[in-house]
């Protein structure tokens, strides 16, 4: 027996708007929670508790602004945009609190040491994941967001520009700069450097 056709995001959104249907919104949350939480976990460099708080804030903001969603992008892309804005606002707030406590250069060095030290302990795939998470921590907010949207959320540069609210050229610049920093932070993974 054929399974019933899945209700589309657009149909669920229409139900939310026309009938104030909270069950429809719950279905949207269930459908997209994994992607949004995973994205925020990457952006927060693995801080799961903070990521989940921000994900909750993301969906509440989405509910409040659902009427403003004009379908010019996929619903998931729109959610990533809200999530990224929530994260940026939180990062700014935290930065103000921690102003002066951290130094980028020291952080770069520290990450390089951590990366090298952890290689013997874990399998290659999971170690890469951990190292990548740490390495993302050395990037600026804009660079990290660009990398996460382009590589982890698999968005095009145009979609990433929509999510980040900046021109496509700026996204490409952020990605290039991020890669330069990641090359240093993940230098232990460079086979040429390892064999040299």
């Amino acid at each position, binding site marked *: 027996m054929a399974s019933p056709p899945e209700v589309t995001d657009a149909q669920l959104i229409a139900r939310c708007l026309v009938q104030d249907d*909270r069950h429809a919104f719950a279905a949207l949350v269930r459908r997209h*929670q994994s992607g949004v939480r995973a994205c925020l976990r990457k952006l927060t460099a693995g801080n799961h508790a903070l990521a989940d708080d921000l994900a909750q804030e993301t969906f*509440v903001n989405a509910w409040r602004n659902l009427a403003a969603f004009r379908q010019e992008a996929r619903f998931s892309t729109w959610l990533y945009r809200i999530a990224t804005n929530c994260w940026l606002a939180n990062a700014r707030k935290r930065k103000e609190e921690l102003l002066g406590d951290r130094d980028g250069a020291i952080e770069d060095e520290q990450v390089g040491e951590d990366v090298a030290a952890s290689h013997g302990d874990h399998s290659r795939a999971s170690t890469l994941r951990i190292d990548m998470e740490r390495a993302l921590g050395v990037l600026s907010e804009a660079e990290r967001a660009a990398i996460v949207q382009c590589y982890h959320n698999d968005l095009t540069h145009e979609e990433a520009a929509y999510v980040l609210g900046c021109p496509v050229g700026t996204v490409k610049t952020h990605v290039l700069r991020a890669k330069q920093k990641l090359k240093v932070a993940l230098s232990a*993974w*460079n086979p040429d450097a390892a064999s040299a």
Partner: protein
Amino acid sequence: MPHTQSDLRPDDADAWLERALVADGAVHRDAYIEDSGFTARVMDALPAPAALPRWRKPALAALWTVAGIGIAFALPGTMFDVARETFRLVSARPFALSEIAALLLVVGVATGTGTVMALRKD
């Protein structure tokens, strides 16, 4: 002949990083995070629906009643004048049976709709 680092274009030299990013992205997308009550927490955090106060309906009915009584007292005899004038206009014009039936139908539908609207739950 194996190529050396200097032979490589910048893109090729960074291929290992590209591969690492793509691999990490693929793992990231494949990993599904279980809901584990997350949706329920979001639904609890949504703003409460705007509920109409219970006193709204009786208060509105009372206001309309007061307004009707007020108009009746303010304009004595108006209702009789309107009724008399309407009857005069109607009696001056001959109506076909179909027109009377249509009028009754309209009045019936209007009465039924009004009753349903009055009895419906908010």
